[in-house]
C-alpha cells in the first residue's frame, strides 16, 4: 500500500477559532497539525507592541490557548506540529511550548524554532527598489519599523529531520508551513519543482483553514452549506507524488466541494499560472479537481516551475494615524439628515483646520462598503450610520475626527443618535511595502529545545 500522510489545519489567522484545531487534533487522525497565525502587518505590529510593552513575549498571543487545546491529543497520537506562532520571537514560543509539555507530563519532546527571517537592520543594504512604487527602499529609512523575508519550507524540513516533534517559526510563507511535512515524509528535493508545485498548491488550499471547508462561502438560496456554525478545518491526505484528497472530520458542518476548493484555489492569487512562493512557482491552470465522495475532493496536476532567485521582503513603516467614529439616523428621511450631517462635518473640519491626507464620510447602510461601486439607484435604507474616517500625519490631528463627531450630539441636527465614546478612536497606521532580496542573503537558523 502506498504511503499517505494526513495534514490538518489548526489556524488560518491570529484570531481564528481554537475549537476546530482541537477537533482536528482529537479526531483528524493526523500525522501533522499546522498553524498559520500571521497577517501582512503582524510582525510590524508586534515590533511596535514590544517597544511599548516590555511584558509582551513577541509570539502569538493565543499560543497558550492553542497549545493547551491540541497538545494532549497530539502527544497521545504522535501528531507533529508545525506553526508560525513564533512571530518575532520563535525561541520564546518554543520555550513556552516546552513549558506546556512539561505541565502535561511529556518529557523528552524535541521542539525546534526557526529563526532568520528578521532582517530589519540589513534590509536597506540588501534591497533595492520598492515593488509597489519603484522608489528606492532607502526612502523608507525614516519610518522603518521592521522588515522580514518570507522563508520557505527548507528550515522546517531540517528541523523535522533532526527529530523535532514541534516546529515553531517566525515569518515563513503560509503554504510552506503545510508543504514542509510532505517534503520531509516523501523526501522531495527542494529543487523538484514538479512535486513542490503540487505540494505548495495543496498548502495554499490549506492555509486559510475553513475557507476551503465552507467558510467565507455561504450565500443563502444560492450556495448553502450545512450547519455554518459548526465548521471543521481542512485535512489533506497526500500521497508520495503529491496527489491528494481534501476532506474534513465527519459529522461537522460546512462542505468540501468543487466550489469551495475552486474559490480557495484562486484566493489571493494574481496570475494563476505563476503563483510566486519561496519554494516554487505554482501553476494552478492545469489542476484537476474531482468530487470522489461526500466532502472529499481529489486534487491533482497542480503544476510547478523552478523557484526564483529572490525572496519577498515585507517592510513595515509608521505612516501616521487614522481617526474614526460614527453616529446614527433612522426613520423616514434618515438619508436627508445624514446628508446634512455630512455637510456640517465637512464645514467643521475646515473651521478647525483638520490636516488630513484623506477624509472619507460614508453612509453605512448605503455606501460604506462598496463606495463608488454602489449602484446609483440603490434604495434608501431605513437606518443609516454616518461613518467618518481621516488619515493624518499626527495623532493630534486624528483626534479631531472624534471631537467633531462629539459636537454632533447637541450641536448637530434633529434625530441624531450618538454614542458616548467607549473605545479608542484613533489608531496608528503601519504601512507595508514589499521588496526582493537574494535568497542566499537570508540564511535560516534552527534552534532546539527539549521538554
Amino acid at each position: 500500500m502506498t504511503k499517505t500522510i494526513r495534514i490538518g489545519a489548526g489556524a488560518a489567522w491570529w484570531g481564528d477559532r481554537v475549537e476546530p484545531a482541537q477537533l482536528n487534533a482529537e479526531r483528524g487522525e493526523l500525522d501533522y497539525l499546522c498553524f498559520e497565525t500571521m497577517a501582512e502587518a503582524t510582525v510590524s505590529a508586534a515590533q511596535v507592541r514590544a517597544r511599548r510593552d516590555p511584558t509582551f513575549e513577541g509570539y502569538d498571543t493565543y499560543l497558550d490557548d492553542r497549545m493547551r487545546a491540541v497538545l494532549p491529543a497530539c502527544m497521545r497520537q504522535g501528531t507533529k506540529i508545525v506553526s508560525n506562532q513564533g512571530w518575532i520571537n520563535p525561541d520564546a514560543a518554543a520555550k513556552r511550548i516546552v513549558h506546556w509539555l512539561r505541565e502535561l507530563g511529556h518529557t523528552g519532546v524535541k521542539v525546534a524554532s526557526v529563526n532568520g527571517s528578521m532582517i530589519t537592520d540589513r534590509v536597506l543594504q540588501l534591497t533595492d527598489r520598492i515593488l509597489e512604487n519603484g522608489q528606492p527602499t532607502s526612502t523608507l529609512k525614516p519610518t522603518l519599523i521592521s522588515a522580514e523575508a518570507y522563508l520557505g519550507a527548507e528550515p522546517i524540513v531540517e528541523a523535522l529531520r533532526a527529530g523535532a516533534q514541534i516546529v515553531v517559526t517566525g515569518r515563513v510563507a503560509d503554504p510552506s508551513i503545510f508543504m514542509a511535512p510532505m517534503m520531509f515524509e516523501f523526501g522531495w528535493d527542494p529543487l523538484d519543482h514538479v512535486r513542490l508545485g503540487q505540494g505548495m498548491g495543496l498548502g495554499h488550499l490549506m492555509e486559510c483553514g475553513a475557507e476551503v471547508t465552507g467558510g467565507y462561502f455561504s450565500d443563502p438560496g444560492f450556495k448553502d452549506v450545512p450547519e455554518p456554525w459548526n465548521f471543521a478545518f481542512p485535512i489533506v491526505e497526500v500521497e508520495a507524488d503529491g496527489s491528494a484528497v481534501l476532506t474534513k472530520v465527519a459529522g461537522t458542518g460546512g462542505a468540501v466541494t468543487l466550489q469551495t476548493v475552486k474559490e480557495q484555489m484562486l484566493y489571493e492569487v494574481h496570475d494563476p499560472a505563476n503563483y510566486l512562493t519561496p519554494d516554487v512557482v505554482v501553476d494552478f491552470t492545469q489542476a484537476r479537481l474531482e468530487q470522489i465522495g461526500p466532502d472529499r475532493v481529489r486534487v491533482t496536476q497542480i503544476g510547478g516551475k523552478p523557484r526564483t532567485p529572490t525572496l519577498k521582503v515585507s517592510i513595515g513603516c509608521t505612516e501616521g494615524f487614522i481617526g474614526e467614529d460614527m453616529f446614527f439616523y433612522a426613520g423616514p428621511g434618515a438619508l436627508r439628515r445624514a446628508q446634512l450631517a455630512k455637510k456640517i462635518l465637512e464645514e467643521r473640519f475646515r473651521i478647525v483646520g483638520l490636516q488630513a491626507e484623506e477624509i472619507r464620510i460614508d453612509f453605512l447602510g448605503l455606501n460604506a462598503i462598496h463606495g463608488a461601486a454602489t449602484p446609483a439607484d440603490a434604495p434608501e435604507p431605513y437606518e443609516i450610520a454616518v461613518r467618518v474616517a481621516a488619515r493624518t500625519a499626527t495623532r493630534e490631528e486624528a483626534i479631531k475626527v472624534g471631537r467633531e463627531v462629539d459636537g454632533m450630539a447637541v450641536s448637530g441636527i434633529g434625530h441624531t443618535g450618538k454614542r458616548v465614546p467607549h473605545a479608542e478612536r484613533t489608531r496608528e497606521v503601519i504601512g507595508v511595502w514589499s521588496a526582493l532580496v537574494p535568497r542566499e542573503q537570508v540564511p535560516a537558523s534552527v534552534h532546539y529545545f527539549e521538554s
Partner: protein
Amino acid sequence: MKVLLQHIAHARSGDKGDTSNIAVFAYAPEFYPLLKAQLTAKRFKDFYAGAIRGEVLRYEVDNLEAMNFVCHGALGGGVSRSLCLDNYGKALSAAILGFEIDVPDELRPLLRGTHLLAA
C-alpha cells in the same frame, strides 16, 4: 433573458497590498462562455466605477471555469492605510454579482436562486 450575475456565477475576493483579486466562477460549464464573452476587464472596471482606481487584469482559468480579475488600486492605498470600513475588501466581490448578463432562455433551468426571478 437578462439576469444578474449571481444567478450564473459565484465570486470570492482576496487582498494583497492595494490590490484586490476578485475571482468569478461559473455555476455550470454552460455559463462559462457567457462570462468570458460578456464580463470583459473593461466592463468589470467600469462596473466598479471609482472603487477601482488602477488597472484591471483578467486571467481566464479554463480548468476551473473561472476568471480572475486582478484589480489594482482597489483597497484604498493598502489594507492598513485604507479608510474603508471593509479594509480587506472581503465584501468587494459581492458587488459584481449585480452585473447584468444575457443568458439564452434554454439555460434557464441551470440558473441559481430562481426564487428571486420573475416567472
